[in-house]
């Protein structure tokens, strides 16, 4: 789950990291009030879950409260990359002496969280790492052993930073590392952390992303930030009706896992496919043989009959989908008979003939004997493991697209 800047700043603040005296609002008149309270020049920043807001005109500087109000009114109306802003952040314009970068991410290869620090803040860290590797310090830390400030200090020192900046940034990076773990983050970034002319250090922007799998145990934080359950995991794109329907089916039953996606797909081949790897392989195979899938899906972890049925119904109810192809790599824990029951049940409940609707069923493996008995009874074309994923995908393309053309 991604957070807006105003939420990320609140998370940072709660961890004891200094932030400016900013205010968040959805109302231009209130932006003026906040600017009056701040006194002096301000920055008005659009609150959107997308990059490039500076370029798009979503960040503006104001010398007076009236100007702040005018900018806020403009920015609140400005759509960026298709995203409506959630509101604006009114921030005191900081008198910056030097900008630094600090961030924490997971390193899948080392299997540990990784701290990053650079004295070249305010720009993209990947660019800094590529062009000025000697200006980036890195250090892993343990998820088992206690964290200690020296670990953060080492990372900052490795970026070539010493003196007061080293001393002041050390506890801040240490707190960022701690909040990263405590809050199940997959990204915690302060860019920039700024040294002001008065010598103080303050976070001027923050970027946080929480692991979806960790949200269950982070309910207190999510609630404290005022984020309702209806916001889901805030995917990078707006989920389609199909995606929401499949998600609801999946959430209603803990047995097995199903996923469905149709953003970026606009064909007529309904795909009931799995598991993770099989779905990727089959989607490639369908497309490489000229097929146009109506959707992507995944069945895994031995879903219940109800769940397989729910997925098949959602696919069959998509516009333009008359037939489905039910295909998986050889299954071990997901059962052939259970999936067969689910997809047939979906056809029956929608008043469709399973033999007509299911163009091909290629799921060999666990409980295939029982599964094949079920498929025989309903007259559905199926194949066993002697037909490869590639061949099965080819048959699906031929039967469905051939028929539609």
């Amino acid at each position, binding site marked *: 789950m991604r957070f807006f800047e105003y939420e990320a700043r609140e998370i940072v603040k709660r961890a004891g990291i200094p932030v400016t005296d900013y205010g968040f609002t959805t109302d231009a008149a209130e932006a003026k009030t906040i600017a009056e309270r701040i006194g002096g020049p301000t920055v008005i920043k659009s609150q959107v879950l997308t990059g490039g807001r500076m370029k798009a005109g979503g960040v503006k500087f104001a010398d007076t409260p009236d100007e702040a109000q005018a900018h806020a009114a403009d920015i609140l109306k400005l759509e960026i990359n298709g995203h409506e802003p959630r509101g604006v952040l009114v921030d005191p314009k900081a008198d910056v002496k030097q900008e630094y970068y600090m961030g924490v991410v997971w390193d899948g290869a080392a299997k540990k969280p990784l701290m990053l620090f650079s004295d070249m803040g305010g720009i993209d860290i990947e660019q800094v790492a590529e062009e000025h590797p000697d200006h980036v310090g890195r250090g892993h830390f343990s998820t088992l052993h206690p964290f200690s400030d020296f670990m953060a200090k080492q990372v900052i020192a490795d970026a070539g930073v010493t003196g007061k900046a080293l001393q002041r940034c050390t506890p801040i990076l240490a707190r960022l590392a701690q909040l990263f773990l405590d809050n199940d983050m997959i990204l915690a970034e302060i860019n920039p952390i700024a040294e002001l002319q008065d010598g103080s250090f303050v976070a001027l922007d923050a970027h946080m992303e929480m692991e979806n799998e960790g949200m269950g145990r982070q309910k207190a934080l999510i609630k404290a930030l005022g984020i309702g359950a209806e916001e889901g995991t805030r995917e990078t794109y707006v989920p389609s009706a199909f995606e929401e329907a499949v998600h609801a089916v999946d959430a209603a039953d803990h047995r097995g896992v199903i996923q469905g996606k149709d953003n970026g797909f606009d064909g007529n081949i309904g795909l009931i496919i799995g598991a993770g790897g099989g779905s990727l392989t089959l989607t490639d195979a369908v497309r490489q043989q000229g097929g146009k899938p109506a959707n992507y899906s995944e069945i895994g972890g031995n879903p*219940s*009959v*109800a769940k397989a049925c729910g997925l098949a119904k959602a696919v069959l109810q998509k516009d333009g989908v008359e037939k489905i192809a039910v295909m998986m790599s050889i299954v071990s824990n997901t*059962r052939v*008979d*259970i999936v067969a*029951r689910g997809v*047939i*049940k979906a056809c*029956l409940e929608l008043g469709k003939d399973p033999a007509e609707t299911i163009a091909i069923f290629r799921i060999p493996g666990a*409980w295939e004997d*029982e599964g094949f*008995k*079920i498929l025989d*009874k*309903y007259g559905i074309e199926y194949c066993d493991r002697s037909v490869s994923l590639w061949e099965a995908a080819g048959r699906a393309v031929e039967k469905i697209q051939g028929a539609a053309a």
Partner: protein
Amino acid sequence: MRKDAIFIGIEVKDEFTSDPALGAKLNEVCPVNIYKGTAEGVDIVEENIDECVLCGLCYDASPDDAVSVLKLYSGGEPLR
């Protein structure tokens, strides 16, 4: 008592349907909650019947021939 869904049918012989101890036991062993133990005995939860995974644990937990799991897609053939 006999209840049929689309793919699976469940039969509990009438002489066992009023045995609360059996009901409780079936309730405990069935991984997909097809059986419900009640004060009166055994009940069958219709919406769960097609979820049957053919594990046979209900047979193991019951006296001889008390329960049958029937594969309706295979001519009503019993699991055992």
